């Protein structure tokens, strides 16, 4: 075990931190987030040039040989700077899923476009009422002479507002919550029958709902078949959860630093408010919460290649711990700022909203706590 970054990792982190710091002050990024895609296309090109879009992919899949650790390093810095780019969706979750689907003929070609920054992908698994259960798929995929016909609805497709193509889970056979029978299909934006309803998220990024009304796609568009679909999705969602956790860590630490600075400069009752012991101790508790959250980030990452049941349990434990820490840190960051923390013009509230959205991405607290506890039950029964 070694928690220190390799030289390459340290370089990656430093360049990410520098880029984010230089790209724009937080206030400007926030204003940008309210318009259009919710992120900067210029940043995206820069990410491609910096090699970040292939940082988490193995070399044989056109990447630079890194993995989730490298992804986490970048995502943490994006969280720290409130950068809204869809790196997690495209370059980590979708690309990672694709990289593992060796039966998909377009695999390398698609990944090449992703790594080059020329294609944005989004994962569409959530449905009305599914509440993060990847097996809860009512969207239907029917075989046709030329391929498949998809019908159904997907909701809260993260970064879906700007996606060039969607990776859609759809059921080939079985009942609504069966794990078997789920395929993953590549559906390009603009495919007839696909309606994309974009909207923005609480933290100013772009998401979308999809309506699939008899969407015809060729047979080659099946990325994963019904025997492996759920497994691939579950892997991808667990990686995604840890990616969102890394984002949280960056945002949490930035909110803590910002709060510490405020406590030193803001004066009330004739002295810097940081001299009030209650506030100083609160900040100490925030620090401890973030430190323990960071430990759970590393722990979760270390289990990503473990057998599925172990992986799921460990990722859920991480997501629970980090979401709880994020709620505490975010709320107290606002509290310690007092009135000014309530202003939309001040960044601290945006960190809180970022943490809230990350907390509800790829499984919320309730989902992960239940999955952890169920894992328990399974363990007891020797399953």
């Amino acid at each position, binding site marked *: 075990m070694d928690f220190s970054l390799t030289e390459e990792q340290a370089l990656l982190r430093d360049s990410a931190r520098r880029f984010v710091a230089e790209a724009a002050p937080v206030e400007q990024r926030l204003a940008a987030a309210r318009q259009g895609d919710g992120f900067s296309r210029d940043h995206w090109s820069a990410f491609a040039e910096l090699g970040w879009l292939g940082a988490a992919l193995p070399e044989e899949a056109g990447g630079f040989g890194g993995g989730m650790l490298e992804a986490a390093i970048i995502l943490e810095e994006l969280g720290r700077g409130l950068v809204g780019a869809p790196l997690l969706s495209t370059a980590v979750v979708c690309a990672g899923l694709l990289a593992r689907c060796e039966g998909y003929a377009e695999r390398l070609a698609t990944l090449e476009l992703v790594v080059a920054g020329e294609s944005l992908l989004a994962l569409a698994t959530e449905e*009305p009422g599914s509440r993060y259960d990847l097996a809860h798929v009512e969207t239907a995929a029917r075989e046709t002479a030329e391929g498949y016909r998809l019908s159904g609805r997907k909701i809260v497709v993260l970064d879906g507002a700007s996606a060039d193509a969607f990776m859609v889970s759809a059921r080939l056979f079985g009942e609504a919550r069966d794990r078997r029978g789920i395929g993953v299909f590549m559906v390009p934006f603009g495919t007839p029958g696909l309606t994309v309803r974009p909207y923005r*998220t*609480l933290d100013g990024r772009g998401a979308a709902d999809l309506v699939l009304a008899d969407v015809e796609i060729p047979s080659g568009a099946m990325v994963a078949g019904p025997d492996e679909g759920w497994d691939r999705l579950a892997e991808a969602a667990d990686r995604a959860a840890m990616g969102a956790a890394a984002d949280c860590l960056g945002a949490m630490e930035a909110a803590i630093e910002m709060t510490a600075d405020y406590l030193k400069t803001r004066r009330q*009752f004739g002295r810097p408010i940081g001299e009030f012991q209650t506030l100083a101790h609160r900040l100490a508790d925030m620090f401890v919460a973030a430190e323990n959250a960071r430990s759970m980030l590393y722990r979760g990452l270390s289990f990503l290649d473990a057998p599925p049941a172990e992986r799921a349990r460990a990722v859920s434990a991480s997501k629970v711990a980090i979401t709880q820490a994020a709620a505490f840190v975010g709320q107290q960051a606002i509290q310690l700022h007092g009135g000014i923390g*309530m202003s939309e013009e001040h960044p601290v509230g945006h960190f809180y909203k970022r943490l809230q959205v990350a907390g509800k*991405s790829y499984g*919320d607290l309730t989902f992960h706590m*239940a999955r952890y506890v169920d894992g328990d039950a399974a363990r007891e029964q020797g399953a």
Partner: protein
Amino acid sequence: MDLKLTAEDEAFRREVRDFVRSAVPADMARRTRRGGHTPKADLQAWNRILYDKGWVAPHWPREYGGTGWSALRIHIFEEECAAADAPFLSYFGLRLIGPLLYTFGSPRQKELHLGPILRGDVFWCQGFSEPGSGSDLASVRTTAARDGDDYVINGQKIWTTEAHYADKMFCLARTNPDVPPQKGGLSILMFDMNQPGVTVRPIVTIDEGHSVNEVFLDNVRVPAVDLLGEAGQGWTYAKFLLGNERVSNAQVPRSRRDLQLLRARAEAPDASGARLVDNPDIRQRLAQLEIDLAALEWSVLRVLASPEGERTQASASGLKITGSEIQQRISELAYDLLGPLGVPFYGEDDVAGDLPGFASPDVPGVAARQLFLRAASIYAGSNEIQRTIIAKQVFSL
């Protein structure tokens, strides 16, 4: 000790319920249920309905337009209004300046202002907080300099709720810069918002809503007769208000209604028949909130039942701490129950047409409300300040 409602109290509850349920227009109730900041038109309309009934200010003394109800009955009345999804009346006239006026105002001031407040013809805002002053009223810097028969006010106020549609402000200002605020340096002045020198700048809060403002006061001229009560008593009046505010900040009727709605949402089966309340964690959190709210409610009843003179600032502070925390916890649970539907941003106008996530019409407002309620532990004296008050008052620490 008598810990029960009398049969008369129960009959009173039924009377109030019958009236209120039929009096709240359905669309107004729907808007209230959704949360968010109440539109002025709703505040005015509901104010008028209660005024016509004679129930708009039950907590005022009868001679000024109150109902003469006991504290318990006022509480029952408020609970029934909340249960019927009536809007929460504008606070600053009825709860703050009104009581200040009838307690400390000159005969002319009472004559001039109380009627319009009761009728809902004139809306007020409170000019207390300033940039840099926050919970520390002793650091108010706005000045009111005597100039002949007038005062001339200069300064800046912040977090001024409803300033963008208020007709008047009551404003804390230093009328004597040579004397410390606590010792006679502060006064409260009342003036029209619609006059030269008053500039209102909206502050958008983290819920992306607009309910608070900055107000710039630039040589605002106020006749000396509009100085509330006595000059130099600003500190005393401010403390009087803060005490009042903290009891009503417990917000029990509203929290009770929010929790009822939340339970209803948790108990409603979705398309596949699943209910959120079947998740043991959610079930337990609901139960804990109900229990904690019951405790708060009885704490409020105990304070209300005690003679005014015996109510301590400390008990009001305790209610404020508990009340704000419960409001926050209810709103957090509501947000948690949204699951993935907590991710979309729902604007104030999103109820028309299909909602993001194909959400039901009760979803918009949930995320915004939990964000806005972060303020509940900050405003009216942060919860940290309340703890300091308790430690000092109860334990001389």
